[in-house]
C-alpha cells in the first residue's frame, strides 16, 4: 500500500491532525500537547506574534520546532482587505506559504464571512499562497473556493469553540464528495470520537484547538486526538460497511406486485 499522505499544494504530511495554538495555559503545555499530537501543521494567529516580548510570543517557540510547518492565521480580520494585509505580513515574518484565512467579522461568535473569505482567497492564491480558508460548511462555497485556487477547504463542523461536534455532517459529506482539494474540518470538535467520525466520513484531516487546550489535561487529550485521527483514517481506508437504510419488513410491501388476481 502506498504511503498515505496529506497533500496540501506541493507539500505532504503524514499527520492528519492540525493543531491550534491559542487558549493554552502556557507555552510549555502547548508545546507538549503539540508533541503528543504528532501534528505537523500548526496554526498561530498573527495577533499573537510578539517578537518584542518572548514570554508573550507564540511564534518564537513554534518556529524552532523541527518537522512542524507553521500556518499563520488571520484571526481578527474583519474583511478581505485586512486578511490580505495580515497574510502578507505573516509571510514576511515567518516565511510560510501556508495561510489560514480566517475572516470572522463578529468577534463574539467567530463565524466565517463567506463573501469576504472568497475574495481574500482569490487574491492570496494568485499571489502564490497555499490558501486554507476557514469557511461555513457550504458545498457551493467550497467549489467556488476551489475555483479560485485554494489548497484546501476548512469547513467548520460546528461553531468555533462550541464543542458541538459534527453538527454539519450532511453538508460536510456533500463537500467531501465533490471536492478536489483536501477537506479539513476546522472548529467545533470536542471529543476524539468526533475527529474519528470526520476522518471516517472522508475528511482529509481535522484541526482542533479548544478541544485540546480547554481539556482537563491537554497533553493527554492531544494524544487521544492523534489516536482517534489515525483510527478514523484507517477506517475510511478500510471501507466501512454500508449502513442499512431501513429495517426489513416482516410482511414485504411489494407482494402485491406478484399477486395473481
Amino acid at each position, binding site marked *: 500500500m502506498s504511503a498515505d499522505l496529506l497533500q496540501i499544494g506541493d507539500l505532504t504530511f503524514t499527520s492528519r491532525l492540525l493543531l491550534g495554538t*491559542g*487558549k*493554552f*495555559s*502556557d*507555552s510549555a503545555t502547548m508545546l507538549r500537547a503539540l508533541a503528543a499530537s504528532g501534528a505537523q501543521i500548526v496554526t498561530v494567529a*498573527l*495577533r*499573537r*506574534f*510578539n517578537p*518584542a*516580548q518572548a*514570554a*508573550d*510570543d507564540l511564534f518564537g517557540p513554534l518556529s524552532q520546532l523541527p518537522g512542524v510547518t507553521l500556518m499563520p492565521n488571520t484571526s*481578527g*480580520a*474583519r474583511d478581505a482587505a*485586512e486578511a490580505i*494585509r*495580515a497574510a502578507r*505580513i505573516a509571510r514576511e515574518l515567518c516565511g510560510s506559504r501556508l495561510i489560514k484565512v480566517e475572516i470572522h*467579522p*463578529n*468577534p*463574539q*461568535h*467567530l463565524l466565517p464571512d463567506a463573501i469576504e473569505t472568497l475574495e481574500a482567497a482569490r487574491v492570496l492564491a494568485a499571489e502564490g499562497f497555499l490558501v486554507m480558508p476557514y469557511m461555513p460548511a457550504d458545498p457551493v462555497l467550497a467549489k467556488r473556493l476551489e475555483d479560485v485556487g485554494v489548497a484546501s477547504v476548512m469547513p467548520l463542523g460546528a461553531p468555533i*469553540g*462550541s*464543542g458541538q461536534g459534527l453538527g454539519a455532517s450532511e453538508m460536510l459529506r456533500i463537500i467531501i464528495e465533490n471536492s478536489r482539494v483536501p477537506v479539513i474540518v476546522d472548529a467545533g470538535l470536542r471529543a476524539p470520537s468526533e475527529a474519528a467520525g470526520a476522518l471516517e466520513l472522508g475528511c482529509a484531516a481535522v484541526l482542533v*484547538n*479548544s478541544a485540546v*487546550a*480547554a481539556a482537563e489535561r491537554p497533553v493527554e487529550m492531544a494524544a487521544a486526538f492523534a489516536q482517534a485521527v489515525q483510527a478514523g483514517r484507517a477506517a475510511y481506508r478500510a471501507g466501512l460497511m454500508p449502513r442499512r437504510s431501513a429495517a426489513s419488513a416482516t410482511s414485504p410491501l411489494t407482494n402485491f406486485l406478484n399477486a395473481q388476481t
Partner: protein
Amino acid sequence: MTTDHEQLTTDALPAWLDVAPLLSVARTATAADVEAALAAAHIGPREFAVLLSPAAAPYLENMARVAQALTRRHFGRTITLYAPLYLSNFCSSGCAYCGFAADRDHPRRKLSFDEADTELAALKRMGIEEVLLLTGERTPQADFAYICECVRRAAAHMAMVTVETFPMTTAEYAELVAAGCTGDTLYQETYDAAVYAPLHRWGPKRDFAARLDAPARALAGGIRQCGFGALLGLADPIEDALRLYTHIAGLQKQFWRAGFSVSFPRLRPEAGGFQTDHPVSDALLAQLIFAFRLALPENHLALSTREPAKLRDGFAGVGISKMSVASLTTVGGYDHGAEGGVGQFAVNDARGVADFCAALRAAGLEPVFKNWDAAYR
C-alpha cells in the same frame, strides 16, 4: 448638546430602558426558577434576570462552575491584559462620585505629546500591548484634537489602542479610528435617569441621552469594540445590569461586526469622599459577573485594579477574561513612578506586571499581552 435635567423625561428616552417585565422576574424568581435557568441550554433575558435575583444568591458556587467552563470554552486558559494611561485630569463635569470632578481642588495637568510618548514607551517596556487612554469630559485642554494625536502616537507603540474619554460625534469617532483607535469604553455610570440627574451636577455629562447614544455613534464611526459598564454603587445594581444587558443586546443586532465587553467598576473611595446608597458586596459582584458570563458567553468581561488582589485572582478565568494590570490612575507616572499626584480613584491591586502574571500563571492561566495586530486597523 446641553439637555437640561428637566428635559430628561422618560418619554424622551428609548423604550428599551423600560425593563419592568425583567425586573419583575428578578424580584420574584424562586429557587426552582434558578435551577431551571442553570439547566437551560441557552441563557436568554429571562434566565439572566433569574440569575440576578436574590433567589440565585445561594447558587453562587453552581454559577461559578458554569462561568468558568464557559470562559474556558471561549477564551481558553488565557487572560488578556491591558493598562490604562490617564492623559489628563482636566474635566468640565461635576460628577458627585469622581475624584477628577471639575470642582475638586487638586492640581490639574495633562501630558504633553512628548510626555505621552515617554509614558507609552514606559508601558511598552513593561510588556503592555493594549493601552486604554483616559481623560475627563471634553475640555479645551484635552479636546478631541488632543486625544486624536495621543491615539496616533499610542498606535505607533501598541498593538491595540482604546479610549475612555467622552461622548463624541460619529465623525469624530471615525477620525479616531483613522488615527488607530480600535475600542471605545464609555460607562453610562447608571442607566437610571432619575438617579443619574442629581449625580451629574453640571457640564456636558448631564446629558444622559447623549451619553446613552454614544456607543451607537462610536460603532457607526467604525469603532470595533465597545466597552460598557454601570458604576456599581450608584443605583440599584440589578436594574442597571438588566438595562446594560438590554443596551448591548440591541446594539449587537444593529452592529453585528462589533465586539462588546462589560466591565464591573465598583465605586472606590475617591478624593471627594462620595458615600454610596447602594453598596455592592463581594458576593453580589460575583453574582453579577457570573450572570453576565452565563448570558454573554462569548463577550469579554473585564475587571480592573479597583478590586483587590484576592478578588481579581478569584475571578480570573471564572467569568472574567480581560484585566488591567499595574494601573496608575494619576496622570502619567509610569515613566518615573507615581509622582504624588491625585488619582481618579484608589487602586486596590497595586501588583506590578511580574507579580500579577505570576499569580495568573499559578492559577493555570496564561497572561496575554498582544492579542491584536496593527494589520487590523
